């Protein structure tokens, strides 16, 4: 089975709406794409389309949170974290308001729309904000669970969702803990930390490594902030070699976050897989991932580089 994280979000959101009257949803003319349309259809009284006005989207959500609601504000990642950064900073993060920014179409896998629509810097931007929690689900199961978890969590959240279908790696029994990075595969020689789209890619890379006799641990760092530093340090210590993989710039994202922690706590040789300080371009998602080095082959090669 394969599901897009945005689809799972939309479905979970509509279910949440039935369970919790305080959940309200805002969108900026992209409800078909962000999948908030399902909620809108079921709960029109609690759905607010502000039009193509992302600053107002975030500001209105802040006001709803201030009056006790649990607003989910959705648009594409580039228009949320990019266009409305100061609104997120001044009206949401600083006043610590309970706004859930559920941003879809993050990363290169937006595809044909090209660089203006491919947000590869949002984890860095959102992670830098005090009070902000940053969650990057790896598959549909996790996206649905994360949607529920962030609704329960009090405080601002940036939930990063993707456009394409990704293979399910978790099953329905999966229990999502916002503060714990699950270890998907145990290993001894190299620790592979991944988030979002790159988690299933990294599992493939671990298979390739196993064929070469390299035992790779795979950790799904679904919450980049607050980072589960215990797990990160434990696996860096155990494996002594570290690879990070994300559909995001290698600057300031998951790789950046882990490098910061390990440089202070467990210095270890490290390779970061991600977009290498460049903008994307139009193309099919698979072609772009290949061109920009976000493949199992690239993760594999990164790990092999670290082996003696």
């Amino acid at each position, binding site marked *: 089975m394969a599901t897009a994280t945005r689809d799972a979000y939309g479905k979970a959101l509509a279910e949440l709406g039935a369970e919790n009257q305080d959940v309200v949803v805002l969108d900026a003319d992209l409800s078909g794409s962000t999948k908030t349309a399902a909620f809108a259809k079921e709960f029109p009284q609690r759905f607010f389309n502000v*039009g193509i006005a992302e600053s107002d989207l975030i*500001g209105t959500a802040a*006001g709803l949170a201030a009056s006790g609601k649990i607003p989910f504000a959705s648009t594409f990642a580039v228009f949320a974290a990019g266009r409305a950064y100061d609104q997120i900073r001044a009206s949401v993060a600083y*006043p610590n308001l309970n706004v859930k920014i559920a941003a879809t179409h993050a990363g290169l896998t937006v595809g044909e729309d090209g660089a203006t629509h491919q947000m590869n810097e949002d984890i860095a931007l959102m992670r830098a904000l005090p009070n902000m929690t940053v969650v990057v689900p790896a598959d549909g199961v996790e996206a649905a669970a994360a949607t529920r978890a962030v609704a329960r969590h009090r405080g601002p959240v940036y939930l990063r969702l993707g456009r394409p279908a990704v293979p399910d790696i978790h099953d329905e029994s999966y229990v999502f803990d916002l503060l714990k990075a699950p270890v998907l595969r145990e290993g001894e020689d190299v620790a592979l930390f991944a988030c979002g789209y790159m988690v299933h890619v990294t599992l493939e890379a671990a298979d390739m490594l196993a064929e070469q006799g390299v035992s790779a641990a795979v950790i799904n760092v679904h919450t980049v902030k607050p980072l589960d530093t215990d797990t990160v340090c434990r696996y860096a210590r155990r494996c002594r070699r570290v690879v990070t993989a994300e559909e995001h710039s290698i600057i300031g994202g998951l790789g950046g976050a882990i490098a910061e922690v390990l440089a202070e706590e467990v210095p270890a040789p490290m390779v970061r897989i991600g977009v290498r300080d460049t903008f994307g371009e139009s193309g099919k998602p698979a072609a772009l991932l290949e061109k920009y080095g976000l493949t199992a082959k690239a993760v594999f090669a990164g790990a092999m580089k670290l082996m003696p």
Partner: protein
Amino acid sequence: MEDYSKLKAIAGRLRRHIINMVAAANSGHPGGSLSAAEIITALYFKLMNVDVAQPRWPERDIFVLSKGHATPVYYAALAERGFFSPEELTSFRAVNSRLQGHPDREKTPGVDMTTGSLGQGLSAANGMALGAKLDGQHQRWIYVLLGDGELQEGQVWEAAMTAAHYALDNVIAFVDWNGLQIDGEVSRVMNVACIKDKFAAFNWHVQEINGHDFGEIFAAVERAKEAKGRPSVIIARTIKGKGVSFMENQAGWHGKAPGQEQALQALKELEVE
């Protein structure tokens, strides 16, 4: 004619607080605080239903200071209203103070929304107005004060559309139309005229008043409350720096503290008034 001498006295006290706070901090924004003294007095000493013992009482009326730099007049009113002691006003802008340079809803009792980055307050007010309507609280009023220069921010007009689109007749916005911003006259920096026509075109209920006249403020708010199905804006003609002769209509006093002698002179003028 109603007698507004009590309210006038309060506005005078707020003005003296403004001078004292900005002088003590040697920092802050006197001009746009002095221009809003009557509007803020009208809100906190007559119009707004608030409870100082429970600043977050869920049925209170709400005020958003979208032009967040006018904290001196805002804190002065909150203190005089009883949210905290007027003595605390001396800590304005100092380290560890609850009275931040710009409003902080987490730190200051009575502050409903954090602001300071201009252009964002109306959106937040709309959100609170939507929240009140969802909760069936049709008697709660959401007031917001915008600067005239602030109207240059695009988000204000995004929010103006949202308020009209969702028929937020519980939103009452004031524009402090003092004609000045940091770099000079609003009409020269980036002309926002015709403000009334702009709001009218956005389908708002629009009134223009003298923002230093309590009678006009109360009459306008009454009419605004009667305007069903539409948000209301009250364009209040004001004088930036009002009450202090050397500050009046001077852009230079937007964000500058008076020296000791200037402060004494200002206080003397405000005493006479």
